[in-house]
């Protein structure tokens, strides 16, 4: 059976971002409560570098999507499910920008600029402001817990379609087992 799939590039961007984002959730939760140490400073830097990588990938992904129409959802899916899927994906698109941007804003406000991979200084988005920084820290935290919840919902939906409905929804985001099926 031939079914429309995402392009190889879209798949690569999706799964690369999935790995980065899951790693960032874990790292973020782990590092936040560590006592100050060289290790903590390193982890914060890695987190910031990876976060900016996600932001960059998000930008590439949106540009790619604008010129490459995604494959339709299986027609067997109920209308409300398709609507929910589109809403969920829309939310994810917002969050892949909002999550790293909130971290960048928070870093700027707290007076710790982002120097990507330790070599490329990124501009501060806002001036140093301690109170605003503390507020943005909370925004970054809650936004990402919301992000995590949406990601879990996204994954559960994929699992449901793959193993309960068996409607091939997930295959659209997986490389074909027969190479000729890849676009």
């Amino acid at each position: 059976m031939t079914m429309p799939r995402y392009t190889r590039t879209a798949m690569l961007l999706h799964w690369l971002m999935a790995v980065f984002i899951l790693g960032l959730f874990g790292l973020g939760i782990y590092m936040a409560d560590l006592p100050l140490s060289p290790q903590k400073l390193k982890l914060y830097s890695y987190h910031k570098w990876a976060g900016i990588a996600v932001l960059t990938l998000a930008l590439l992904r949106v540009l790619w999507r604008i010129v490459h129409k995604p494959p339709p959802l299986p027609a067997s899916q109920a209308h409300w499910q398709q609507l929910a899927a589109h809403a969920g994906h829309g939310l994810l698109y917002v969050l892949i920008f909002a999550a790293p941007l909130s971290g960048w804003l928070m870093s700027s406000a707290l007076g710790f600029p982002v120097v990507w991979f330790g070599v490329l200084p990124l501009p501060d988005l806002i001036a140093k402001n301690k109170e605003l920084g503390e507020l943005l820290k909370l925004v970054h935290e809650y936004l990402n817990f919301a992000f995590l919840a949406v990601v879990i919902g996204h994954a559960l939906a994929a699992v449901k379609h793959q193993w309960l409905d068996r409607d091939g929804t997930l295959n659209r985001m997986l490389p074909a087992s027969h190479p000729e099926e890849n676009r």
Partner: protein
Amino acid sequence: MKRLLLPALLLASFGAHAVEYNTVIAEKSQIAFTSRQMGVPVDGKFGKFAATLNFDPAKPEAAKALIDIDLASVDAGSKDANDEVVGKGWFNVKEFPKARFATTSVKALGNNRFEAKGQMTIKGKTREMSVPFTYKPEGAGNATTGVFEGTLPLQRTLFGIGEGAWADTSVVADEVPIKFRLVASPGIAAKK
């Protein structure tokens, strides 16, 4: 009468020019620094310090300065950092509350640029340092102040600032440039 007036005027005008800045105005002065953590520049400053100096622009070689920094007044950029940096591995302010810089010589480099040599003492360790600085008069008449600005190229590991795991200069860079701006007035009476 005229014969007396001319030298008197000359003397008076000379006296007004031979100003010696000797009273540091604390509110207008500041000592700040930039630490580099994983390549990220983080600004900090010292809230309390006492500085005495004598600087006569006509005789810079005779200039002297003594600066005592209250290390507990550090703002290293965040609360975590402030709590950490006063501790034993860093400044150890309980045993060594102050950092002191005392000049030993001052050399004019021209163009209002100077170089001070002196001894920096932190955590009981004393090291020779040379500090380039500029001098600029501001204001006029009695309100004239001298503004002294420069950057002291401190290497933290020379003084054991950041020991143990913190000695790793790939995380916190060794160089911590200390930027200072000292504003001094001629004080109550310009000494002749």
